[in-house]
């Protein structure tokens, strides 16, 4: 049985930060993402539960900060009705920012025709793209009438958990058809959210998203994945060196039940399918490798233990 991994974010100086990554490797943890910014570095990682104190001690010695990041290893879609200045950048980008602080990787999705009431629509392609994520956060604006009566049609056909945000605080989750959760206080604004009320609304949103993700993790634990996404990522790093030439901030993006690999599908899907594991199995035995709806990336969805019959 593999060690239980806990998600953490380390923020500190670039100087000697490799000591942390080396220790992490020795402990059997995984480095999910490394974001260097001038003299600072942010490390998103999965650490074996029993060894967190070791990393914490080293981090403190290096004058860095280790915080738990419960959304690590999730890919969240932040969906706004369109990409026009009415809906972006404010509030939607702030929502994404808070999700990232929780450790998630976020994608902003602006629908082509999501604006309006009677006229709002979502496209089949858009729904499929949203369904590739672990979870979607929709922003539905200021008016309770729109949130309750008109906008929920955008949620139809989206099979992943859907969290709806809007301005009014008195709307209940049951009022929003098809939504898994409604969080108020995050409506349309034309400025960056920085007042205390706005920030606490975003905090509440983050808390609620964390709860939903914890629930999804619990469900997943009942019938675990055939292989951990983080382990697949490690194998990709070792067996497909071209991944290091990708300039995206997260060349391999982890999801709760899969990964998105930002390499062209035509060229690399066979290499990904043929990834070898120590147990003598290939990735294609344990996962579906498909063309992602996002650019021509590769999407891996890992099968469950009950389907495959073993765990790697």
């Amino acid at each position, binding site marked *: 049985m593999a060690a239980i991994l806990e998600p953490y974010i380390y923020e500190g100086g670039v100087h000697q930060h490799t000591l942390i990554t080396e220790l992490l490797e020795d402990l059997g943890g995984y480095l999910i993402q490394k974001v260097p910014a001038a003299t600072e570095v942010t490390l998103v990682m999965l650490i074996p539960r029993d060894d967190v104190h070791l990393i914490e001690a080293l981090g403190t010695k290096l004058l860095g900060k280790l915080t738990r990041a419960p959304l690590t290893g999730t890919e969240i879609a932040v969906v706004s009705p369109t990409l026009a*200045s009415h809906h972006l950048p404010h509030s939607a980008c702030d929502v994404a920012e808070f999700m990232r602080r929780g450790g998630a990787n976020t994608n902003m999705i602006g629908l082509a025709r999501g604006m309006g009431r009677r006229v709002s629509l979502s496209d089949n392609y858009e729904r499929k793209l949203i369904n590739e994520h672990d979870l979607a956060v929709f922003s539905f604006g200021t*008016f*309770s*009438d729109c949130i309750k009566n008109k906008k929920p049609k955008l949620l139809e056909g989206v099979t992943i958990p859907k969290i709806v945000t809007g301005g009014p605080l008195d709307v209940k989750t049951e009022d929003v058809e098809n939504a898994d959760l409604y969080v108020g206080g995050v409506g349309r604004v034309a*400025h960056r959210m920085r007042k205390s009320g706005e920030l606490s609304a975003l905090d509440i949103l983050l808390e609620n998203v964390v709860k939903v993700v914890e629930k999804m993790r619990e469900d997943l634990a009942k019938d675990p994945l055939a292989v951990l996404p983080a382990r697949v990522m490690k194998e990709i790093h070792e067996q497909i060196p071209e991944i290091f030439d990708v300039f995206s901030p997260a060349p391999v993006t982890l999801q709760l039940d899969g990964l998105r690999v930002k390499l062209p599908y035509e060229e690399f899907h066979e290499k990904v399918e043929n990834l070898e594991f120590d147990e003598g199995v290939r990735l294609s035995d344990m996962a579906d490798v498909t063309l992602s709806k996002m650019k021509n990336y590769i999407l891996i969805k890992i099968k469950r233990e009950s389907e495959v019959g073993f765990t790697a």
Partner: protein
Amino acid sequence: MEALETFVVESPVQSEGDAYKSIVADIITELVLGGSIGRIKVIVRPEESLYLMAVILRGSQPRVKVSDMASVDISNHLKKEITISVEQEKYLPELLEKLWAKYGRAKVYQPERKTLIMTAQDVDAEKKFLADMVVADPQSTLQSRLVEMAIRATPEGFRVRYHSMDGHRFVFAASEDILKPEWIQEARDLAEELMEGE
């Protein structure tokens, strides 16, 4: 008329109207319209997919001359140099455009952000000319900014629009359905109502 002496946003649910007021206020700030708008009233009725707005503009704003935003001095009589020391940086791009067009880019020397040095044959005449040169005319851009504001403030799906500009009165209506004549009349009445305070 004071700037923004009346600023009302009405909606069937008043808390939503207040939230919308903050949106409109932000857009007014963004487009630097605060000084130009005297009174504004907005009505949003989401159930009917309707957005109405009436704006009464204040008297025209004066043009901005170089002497309003900077000081112009003859800094060196021998070298025939004129120095413009910029005090209000917000008009600097417009000023540079004009100076470059007149003197040529290489001949406008800018040793640091707020100092511009030019040379001229007749420095006294040139100094007077520069001090009186018009840098910006807020009035000419006002109408386009007003339309921009209306479009940004309206919910995005409301793409059937009506607007009219009559002197100081700006009337705007938007919906996602065909506009009913009574809605446009309501918007006009809004403007009338705002004018009554005169």
